[in-house]
């Protein structure tokens, strides 16, 4: 399990770094997809099947494709090779982002350590339970979100159709 975790984590980090570093936009998007799939693998290791499925379905299957679509419409696929990866502000940026990461993550990690595994052990991450949770205590919020999304979709359709109708 640990070995699998490290492999997945390594792939995820590699994908994330490549997504930033690669100058070819399409390659960058595929690195992002690699990162997403490694993430899905990590979710499976955590026995969070459903989240893994959603990761694949939504992030790889839809968001990734959306990005590819956007790129297809652009003319410049390869970036400017003269622009260097290391610019002057690089060090400062790295420092700030590293600090932020620590600031956000450290409390979380320490918290989960201290609060023991009692909560985790009796939680059964089956799809059925997830569905029941969503449909019972959180029904109202799920409904509201669904309605909002539908409204947004309709608005998008209206906007698109009126734009093309001119």
């Amino acid at each position, binding site marked *: 399990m640990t070995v699998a975790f490290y492999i997945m984590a390594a792939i995820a980090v590699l994908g994330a770094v490549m997504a930033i570093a690669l100058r070819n936009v*399409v*390659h960058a998007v*595929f690195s992002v*997809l690699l990162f997403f799939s490694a993430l899905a693998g990590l979710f499976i290791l955590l026995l969070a*099947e*459903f989240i893994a*499925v*959603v990761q*694949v*379905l939504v992030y*790889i*299957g*839809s968001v*990734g*494709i959306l990005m*590819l*679509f956007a790129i*297809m419409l652009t003319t410049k696929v390869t970036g400017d090779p003269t622009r260097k990866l290391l610019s002057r502000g690089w060090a400062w940026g790295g420092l700030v982002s590293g600090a932020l990461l620590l600031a956000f993550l450290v409390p979380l990690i320490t918290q989960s350590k201290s609060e023991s595994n009692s909560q985790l052990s009796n939680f059964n991450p*089956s*799809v*059925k339970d997830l569905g029941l949770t969503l449909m019972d205590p959180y029904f109202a919020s799920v409904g509201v979100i669904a309605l909002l999304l539908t409204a947004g979709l309709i608005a998008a359709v209206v906007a698109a159709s009126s734009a093309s109708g001119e």
Partner: protein
Amino acid sequence: MNNFIDYKLIELGQWTVGLFNDYPVVQILVHLLLATLPLTLVFMGAFGFSTWLERKGLARIQNRLGPNRVGIFGLLQPLADGIKMLLKEDIVPDRSDKLFHFLAPVMLMVPAFIAVGFLPLGDGLMALPMDSAILFFFAVGSLNTIAVFMAGWSSRNKYSLLGGMRAVAQMISYEIPLVLSAVAVIMFSGSLNAQEIVASQQIQSWLASGNLVKEFFGQILGWHIFKPWGFAGFIFFFVAALAEANRSPFDLPEADSEIIAGHLTEYSGFKYAIFFMAEYISAFAIAGIATTLFLGGWSGPVIAGLPWFIIKMFSLFAVMIWIRGTLPRLRVDQLMGYAWKFLLPLAILNIFVAGFYYFAEQQFGSLAAFIGGWVIGFGILQTAAKGLSRLNKSPTLDGKRVYQLVE
């Protein structure tokens, strides 16, 4: 129950794993191999057979003979083709994105085989026995799109790019009606587990009755396709599946009369063969999942289990061949319109019909629900379909026309 073949296979597997009881690491490996290797080999064989079947079937539809030179009835033709493909020169365009050009067939192959792993081939026969297998299947199926796009983009060919664009647009659009028409079944069965979905299509009380006739029909009559929403759902699912698997009449990404071979234009030799194989295995997988969802999976009279599943899967594949031999291709915009304006609303409506059917069955008993469902539920779907097609019809499309004959 008479699905002894499945039990024997499972027993064989357990016995083999049991041989390595003393070596836990080896045991895990053997277990993995047993889960994957037979499946891989069987489906690769099935791929070969299906290419033969397709060529032969199409030939007969077109009043030809089909392959008949290699082996008896040309049965060894796939082998000959495979050897030919292996020995052919592998041509990679000079300005292509070499890495992606190489990776694309692999990217298509992997999800295809993973998807096959989620098929409930028999009672307990499943390579990846996961609780939400159906959902996983769809998730993995959506990966095909990326591979096709990779192939289309990396080839640096305009036809390939067009094919890739078409593939992406088409697959995204048809995934939605595909999943939605499956939702009705999932809702009715109350589970995402493929085995449970199959079990929900057997009339358990009849099977347990001991009456031979009842046992016989208990394996058939419960199939979802005999229910109104199941029938409609099957049609939607099958149409969407054709589009997902790039089969005619939705084979736009590789439309040979328009864009030569679409994303496959620049592929040759073994890479092309792998593409071909992945596409056929995806088609199998989707036929298998249609079998599971609507045709009662492995359940069937006399020899329930693996044989029935294979028969049903190949029958669906034969229908795909039949359709391919008959129908012309849709146009891009029509294809999208058909998915969004016709299939999607109807699939959503079908979920409601299925819901009402479910409650009607609990309220009025299954027979009344059955008759009422076919009369009312199917009537609603039919009317909706007609109304939608009238709504969508462009004003100049007048269907049947009358022609003047003048002197």
